[in-house]
């Protein structure tokens, strides 16, 4: 069985600018994978290359077992793609768009379509041009879900939406999660944290890590050491200890490879005068801030 998304050294240059820099990515079947990163990190470019909207400069990618360069036409009968930048045919009405799309998909489910229309409160007789941004995004999502896609790819779907609409979209996504793999890009960590099973972090075109959410939150810990007497920071410290700071008798850092026993052993070796050690779990936001600061230091 192929992984829904697999890339190998995927690279995209725009002239001298490297937008995507040798990405190796694996999205397992059934995952709800969040590709996160700051604006301009290369998330949209990565998705466009995966969807064969633009060609890769180097490397390769397979989508549902098909080389991404061959993703076109019938391939999209299994992929639901929604992007905040997509130009929906605004001259159509909501109902006529859904009716038009029905014939393109052998797996289109009219009952599911009805249910999504109801769930998203879409008015079939409304012109798309007259819809708000949130309603357009709901319509796009409804049209991308109604045919039971094997892979759902969403590029910044929640940008600028009010919390109510956002929750509705997330809810409908979660309902589909059992039958589909979801690949979603976002720069809003709070919304991703609540439902993602996997996460990848993109920084300046480079994928800094890609792993299961549970493993990520388990391996990052904020460590606080109380020493007596206060001493300067020993050197060298393990490379996985990020942003070490000493303030009087207190030493703080973030361990990016936390393992209770190993971390304690390292602390005892380096801080013989440690009186107390505390480990605190980090939010996704705190983890990314730490990663972003680390890459900024480099």
């Amino acid at each position, binding site marked *: 069985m192929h992984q829904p998304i697999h890339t190998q050294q995927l690279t995209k240059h725009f002239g001298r600018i490297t937008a995507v820099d040798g990405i190796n990515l694996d999205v397992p079947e059934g995952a709800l994978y969040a590709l996160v990163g700051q604006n301009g990190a290369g998330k949209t470019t990565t998705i466009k290359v995966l969807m064969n909207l633009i060609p890769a400069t180097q490397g390769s990618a397979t989508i549902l077992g098909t080389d991404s360069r061959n993703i076109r036409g019938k391939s999209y009968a299994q*992929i639901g793609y929604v992007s905040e930048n997509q130009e929906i045919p605004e001259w159509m009405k909501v109902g006529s768009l859904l009716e038009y799309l029905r014939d393109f998909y052998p797996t289109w489910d009219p009952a599911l379509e009805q249910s999504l229309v109801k769930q998203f409160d879409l008015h079939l007789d409304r012109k798309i041009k007259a819809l708000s941004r949130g309603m357009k995004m709901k319509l796009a999502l409804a049209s991308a879900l109604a045919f039971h896609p094997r892979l759902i790819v969403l590029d910044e779907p929640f940008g600028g939406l009010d919390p109510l609409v956002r929750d509705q979209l997330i809810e409908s996504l979660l309902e589909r999660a059992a039958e589909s793999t979801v690949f979603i890009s976002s720069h809003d960590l709070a919304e991703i944290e609540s439902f993602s099973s996997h996460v990848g972090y993109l920084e300046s075109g480079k994928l800094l890590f890609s792993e299961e959410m549970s493993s990520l939150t388990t391996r990052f810990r904020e460590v606080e050491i109380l020493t007596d007497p206060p001493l300067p920071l020993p050197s060298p410290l393990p490379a996985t200890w990020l942003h070490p700071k000493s303030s009087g008798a207190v030493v703080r850092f973030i361990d990016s490879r936390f393992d209770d026993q190993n971390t304690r052993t390292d602390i005892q070796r380096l801080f013989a005068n440690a009186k107390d050690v505390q480990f605190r779990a980090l939010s996704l936001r705190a983890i990314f801030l730490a990663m972003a600061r680390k890459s900024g230091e480099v």
Partner: protein
Amino acid sequence: MIQFLHIFKKDVRRHWPEILISLALLVLYTRHELHLWQLSPEYYSISSFFFDFSGRYIPFFLVLSWIFLILRVVQGETLVGDRQWWVTKPYVWWELLLSKLFFLFVVIWIPLFNVQLLLLVHARFPILPNLGRLFLIQFTFPLVLFVSAVALASLTRNLPQALLGIGILVIVLIIGLSLGSLSTHMMGDSPPFMDSLELLLVFGSIVLMPIWQFARRRTGASRITIAASVGTATLLSLIPFASRVEQSYPLLATKDSPAQFTIPPIAESLGNPSGIPDFISDTLLSIPVNVSEVAPDSVVLIDGMKLTADSTDDSHWTRGWVSEYRQVWPGTQRQTLSYVVKRKKYEEIKAKPLNLHIQLALSEYEEVQARTLILPTAAFRDSDLGICRPAFIRSQSLECRKPFHSPAYMGRFDAPHSSCEPLRRFPNEYPSNLDVAYAWAPPTDEIFPDPGLNPIVDYQVIFNPIPRIPDPNSTAPVEYSIPTLCPGAEIRLGRPVFKRHFRIELELPAIRLQDLVERATLPSALPLRRRASSRGV
């Protein structure tokens, strides 16, 4: 439903206003074309303004509406960019392309084809014998128009981009024409393979690139390929093939030439002929040539000319072969050859005595299947000419119409022996010989129709009087007579058959270019003096 029909239905639903506009213009065009042959002189005088206006502008707006419709329908699923909604839907590229072509077929081509059938029937030409060529005519103007518009639409994102594309194309054409004016050329001097190559490059790229664009959406590469193909074809078309002219037109000795050419004494200009306005960048030389001994039932055409100037200081100058289009009939006494010299060059050498070496590329045609046609009073049907009638106003021409192309013909009208009264004007410095007038249309590729929308070609058989040499000793005003056709007039009609190409040489020694300058560009009162000598070889 089959995908292309599904997309087609959506396009019709979306573009119905544009479809209605193009159909309305097609109706107006049809109405105009139907009335074209039915006009009476009264109709002309009363409604001529409206008729002229509609005749001139409706075809333009009709074609414009088609281009607009094609741009709109193809750009409905634009192939340019990466934000299009449809690109990530299960569209099959060839079904999308097929849907757009089917749209053109149904919305533009079928109505046009029906109009063409109607025009054919209305002009009283049968459908069945003409059906094959009616299909062939679709491969001329309509095909070129549709393919070009589809190519433009597939390589641009929206109407402003398409307009920009047209603008760039116009600039390229202007540059091509400017380059063309710098190089010298003669019609048909390039080898046939070169013409085919140019056609293949241009047409091949505008057919293949949109297909590739539909299949792969590689806009940049497609645009570059088309631009490179058009650029290469333009450059190829500018290559002069002088040696090919000389190969195609073998040199004949004077005695073997089917027409004798000599250069008469040239009048020497006494004044300063540099009174040509400064803004004129070219100088037109006029070289009179006396002609004689053209065989009866034949015509000699002057296709091209090459002028080489040698001066006493051993400098040598030529522009190469340039096109000419002159007819030399039996009885023709005089023709005037025109040759353009760049103003700068002219000013440099105009007063120097030069030895001019003139080569003429000529073609000889013979008349076959000659017959006599007595003009009836009303419109008549002729197996070669189609349906003809004398022009409304007393004139030297017949108005004719025929499906798909005007025929080749050689016509002769013996004006003095007819009862038709000629038109006379005088004085005129280009006198004509009333003895006989000739009409001519060269043989063409009769299988392929003339490009156009209307399958009926309206053309005129014009009987032109042949030029004659004025009597230098006469002081009386010269009569300029135009033969007119009238019912009962006898016309001799035949088909021209190509006999041969050939080339002759003429020498014009010790001449100053300023003595050859086109009189129209000189001050009218410039005194002229007859030169002593010049001769044909």
